[in-house]
């Protein structure tokens, strides 16, 4: 856990969490965090202080639902699951992101 890792900012954290849930199905908070870190090739560090409030916000907005379950190691954990609204939201957000990054990339190329 070194200092040069980037913190994930809020908006993208929600998107990453949604994507993770889409890929892996129902998952607990710790799993989501680890998966994001792994996918980023350990370039990102998930701040748990923001992860749980972000998950709560997604749940309040109806994009995910939660349920207590039992983990692989027989541990009680809260599992988050993507809802239909969440799936749509993910599509929309992903599309927006792709577009934004494309524009930004083009902009950086042309001015670079």
């Amino acid at each position, binding site marked *: 856990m070194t200092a040069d890792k980037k913190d994930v900012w809020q908006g993208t954290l929600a998107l990453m969490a949604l994507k993770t849930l889409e890929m892996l199905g129902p998952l*607990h908070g710790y799993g989501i965090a680890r998966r994001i870190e792994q996918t980023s090739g350990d370039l990102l560090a998930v701040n748990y202080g923001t992860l749980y*409030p972000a998950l709560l916000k997604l749940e309040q907005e109806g994009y995910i639902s939660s349920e207590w379950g039992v983990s692989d190691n027989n541990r*009680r954990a809260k599992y988050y699951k993507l809802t239909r609204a969440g799936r749509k939201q993910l599509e929309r957000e992903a599309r927006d992101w792709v577009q934004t990054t494309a524009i930004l990339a083009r902009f950086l190329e042309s001015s670079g």
Partner: protein
Amino acid sequence: MMKVTTLRAWFARLGGLFGKERRDRELAEEMESHLQMHIEDNLRAGMSPEEARRQALIRMGGVEQVKETYRDRRGIPWLESLLQDLRFGLRMLRKNPGFAAVAVITLALGIGGTTSVFSIVDRTLFREPPYPNADRLVSFGVVAPIEPREFMLAPEYVVWRAHQTPFEAMTSMMPGGAGCDLTEQNAVHLTCALVEPTFLPTLGVQPILGRNFTHEQGLPHAPRVALVSYGLWRARFGGDPSIVGRSISLDGQPTLVVGVLPETFEMPTLGQADLLIPETLDEGALRRDNPITILRTFAKLKPNVTTAQASSALQPLFQDSLQYVPAQFRNEVRLSVRSLRDYQTRDVRLRSWMLFGAVLAVLLVACANVASLLLARAANRQGEMAVRAALGASGARLVRQTLTESLLLGVMGGAIGCWLAYELVRLFTSIAPGSAVHPQQAALNLRAVSFAAGTSLFCGFFFGLVPALRRPAPQSLTGQDARTTSRGPLRHALVASQIAVSLVLLACTALFLQSLWNLQRAPLGLDAENLEIAQITLAPYRYPQAARQLEFFSELEMRLRQIPGVSSLALSDSLPPSGPMRATIYARIEIAGRAPFAAGTGGMVGWRAVTPEYFFALRIPMLRGRAFTEDDRAPGHDPIILSDSLARRLFAGENPLGHSLRFGLQGPWRIVVGVAANVKNNGLEAQADPEFYIPWKQDEAETSYRTAYIVLRTPLSPETIATWVRTEVASLDTTVPVPVATMGQRVGKLMQVPRFNAVLLSLFAAVAVVLSAIGIYGVVGFLVNERTREIGIRMALGATPRAVLALVLGSMIAWTTAGALAGVLGGWFASRLLRSLVFQIRAHDLWAIGAAVALQFVTVLLACWIPARRAMRVDPMVALRYE
């Protein structure tokens, strides 16, 4: 879409305010399982158990911070702290039920009173009349001595209507409602308003059923049609929609109902109207037959035209019309264009403002009281606030907490105040004279309730802010007596302002009570004891000619003479002290052998036709000459009796008896046979107009005699007389209604408005005085409490009770005097403003202000005395051990 999710999230967060413990537990459990999984992963990665746990904890960061952010997201933080403050505030109030009760009741009195009066004066002061585009509706016409409100003569109106430019539409109606009878089974007497067919469209009103009058229905000899008011439609026709197109019998003639008016419809004159009937305006016929038909005229301005512009645009037409006015009167005739709202409310506006001002003053005193209470409590709670500040509460947070508590008081006071207002409005409308309150306008509607809510929030904010802005002093933390700040000038200033405000109220009340007293003792010029009055009005369709009317009354007079126990009986076509009276212009009175009066119109002179016993029955003294005799009623005799004021004006000290005079150019010459004492004839408050009397003849075809007042002087009970009169009238014509009242009741009716004002003002002033007394008592009592120890020390060192009294009351007296001075000044200004509402009182009557000051002074003394006495009896031993 975004909106829906946001809303959904807010609902979830609102839900998050409940079941906190369970959610907190769940979060803790989730964090714990997260931590455990991390540790297991670390173990699997080959760390030692201690290292695995340590790393996981580091990575996790502050669990409490996570929980804190999580909680903020879960609920709504500001709402949570608000709820917390509310809970705390309620608990504080429950702990201090006495304080809470006094504060809430004080506020409820203020808010309840204000709201009830607001709902009564709202329509007059703050709202447009209930028509679309009411801001463009105007009343216009000429103002002349014969009629103080603008009017138009019908022939002129027709010309103006054809040539005017500033108005989009223009309409007219006959002033006053004409009586009309619904002559079907269960005949009833109704009020019909004669209006031009353009009346409703100009006002922007649509009938709810049927349709408005057409142009053709306003032409001469058109079939008779009518629009029915909503009230009549419901009451008489059971709300049956098929009324439209049905024929009803009105004054004995078939009349077609063409529509029903909306429930909210009001006449622009605020008069009564059960039915609208089209008026016919035929210029030629009008000039020929009835050139002095008076119309009330209303118009709708074109967009962006002001009344001043309209007035100047009408000037040419007005100048043209002036040529029909006799030259000597011309400079007394003016053109007037004013908003409908002004037309409706000018006469009652000052009265309404006075009531509203009075009740606002009560509210102010109430607020000052509560502020003073809160200040005292804030002084007691300085320690608590200092602790909170020391524990990290920000200044804003403390202000918020204090404000929440005072707003809580405000809302509670407002809620009770609403209930009080509801009861008060019912009370006011039941005791209010008809002309003071329009019942359909005075209801506790949504506007009034919002006003109450606004007021209570404002009050809560206003009196809460003062103590809230006080920063707790750090030394309060020491637990030492740090309450010295409460002795500051703020509470004294509050008391001074209370005294000033209630003094103004008292002065106004004294003024009105004095006016009422003057009114009650003002000589009427007649003896109202044992007088019974029957008013008989004949329907024109049954008695179309004056001859038939006179015949009816002669017959009735003869029959009534048979009633035993009546000491005198008189007939008259009008009756003092108020009500319509025939009138003529002073300049039209011509004395034989003298030049006519040439300086303008000279104002109005009233006249009545009376039977010989009139003066005797009313006990109006004859100052000179004689009263009429039976012989005077015979044809060929034309005597006249002048009132004292008219005789003085016409003959200026000369003996008028024997002079001949006539009024109206064609009238017969009449010989002055007597001068009668002046009688109030213009209401109780106004100066009496000069008047004269002519004999009530058996036959006189010129004037109509539709209405007669039958005056009976009798020691018999009013009920007995009423029954007899009704029986005699019914034996002549069963359809004639006979309202009977005593002269005392008729006079009493005129006293209603002044009495209503005085009662209301007295009520408000009493509340204000009691509240300010409570305020003074509170302040002095608090001072004494606070300084008990100091007083004890002083007494132990030899201070006399007198010195202690001076210590306690010293500052109080200074502030009271300041308040009283301000109050006297305010009272003086207020009574000047209200001068037009009171009767026979010179502008700055010292009696009223003096009485007010004296009463206020006694109250202050009483309120100070109790706590001051306690101070003088402080036992030094007890006081020194105090605390």
